[in-house]
């Protein structure tokens, strides 16, 4: 049964996240954090940590950029740094939310 219809919580299944969605998130991440994060070639998680330690508003801007890119507001219970930091889980969550939209193909 569709999780949305069943009322079950949607918290993302990391295994199901597609490379395409993760790639989109990473592109948004690079674009939105350009001014805040250093140029060093770090993995996504470390770069987000670095950006947060330098300027926590950068994380908020990243969240807003993800919402704009995927055309949805992240539900308030998922507005959590560790959730944003977990790329496969975030990607899976966004995919599931997109799948729940009326008229979208799952």
């Amino acid at each position, binding site marked *: 049964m569709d999780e949305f219809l069943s009322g079950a919580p949607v918290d993302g299944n990391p295994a199901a996240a597609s490379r395409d969605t993760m790639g989109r998130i990473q592109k948004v991440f690079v674009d939105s954090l350009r001014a805040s994060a250093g140029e060093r070639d770090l993995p996504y998680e470390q770069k987000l*940590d670095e950006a947060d330690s330098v300027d*926590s*508003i950068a994380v908020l801007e990243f969240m807003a950029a993800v919402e704009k890119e995927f055309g949805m507001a992240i539900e*308030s219970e998922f507005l*959590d740094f560790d959730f944003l930091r977990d790329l496969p889980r975030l990607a899976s969550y966004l995919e599931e939310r997109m799948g729940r939209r009326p008229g979208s193909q799952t």
Partner: protein
Amino acid sequence: MTVNDLLWFLYLYPLRMLSVVGRRGLIYGIGRLAEPFVQFRARERRNLVMRRMLAAQCAGITQDQALKISRQFIANSNFRMLDDLVLSSPSFQRMLRCEGVQGIEHLERAKSAGKGVIVLTAHFCACRIAKRHLATIGYPMLSVRDPRPPGDWWGRLGRRILEPRYIELLQAVIGEAVYVHDRGFTLKIVQRLRSGGLVNIHFDGQSGARAVQWPLLGVPRWFSTGIFDIIRLSGCAVLPMLCLGRSTAFRIVFGPMLDMVQVSERDEFVRANLPSFVQTIEQQIRDNPGEWEQWTSF
């Protein structure tokens, strides 16, 4: 052990124990008896406050007024600390005497938009008791705080033993708070706003990686611009709040919502809205100079 450490020890142990058993009258009595001593101990601080008041020409404070207000400032700081003890008591609710909450209709209107409300305040002595009181009548508020105690008061022993105890007291007194050094603390603020809740920000605080200088009472001061990013990205309402008095008699005044100039570009948004924020707290300080706690960092 320094004299300061000894005073902190008395405050954090015997006096705090009295507060636990709910003896506000006794605590306040000790506070009144100790006031001449406190004024004497704080004479340098009082002189500093006087100098700062006179330097702030826009505050319109004369020499005679500055002398009187600076004494009041020290007395208020003293009683604010006693109020912290009152708030740490399990039975604090029955010890708070609120004389009234004005402008609650502004708060209701701001909440009804459904995007949360930033409650804008300056550092006034009664803010903590006001917030705890508001929480008990159905308006819980998330406080945004800097975790560092606002002073370097301790000797070596005090720093090791008393400072952690004081931080623990503050955390118990303040209630629900998010700390500016927490990971992703801005997300926690937006989370609260999106669920339609209230977030209190002391606009005259000086935390944050991004800041802009603007005159307050005619003196240049740095203001954190993070609040404007949060407002711009969340679309929340902004409501000024003024809290005056002590736990024995205090009042809370909400002003009308601030009209935000909507501009999508970040720096432009700050430039467009900063003056009205500063003007709001400036007026509160002008009207109640003895209750503003930031004269020493001014």
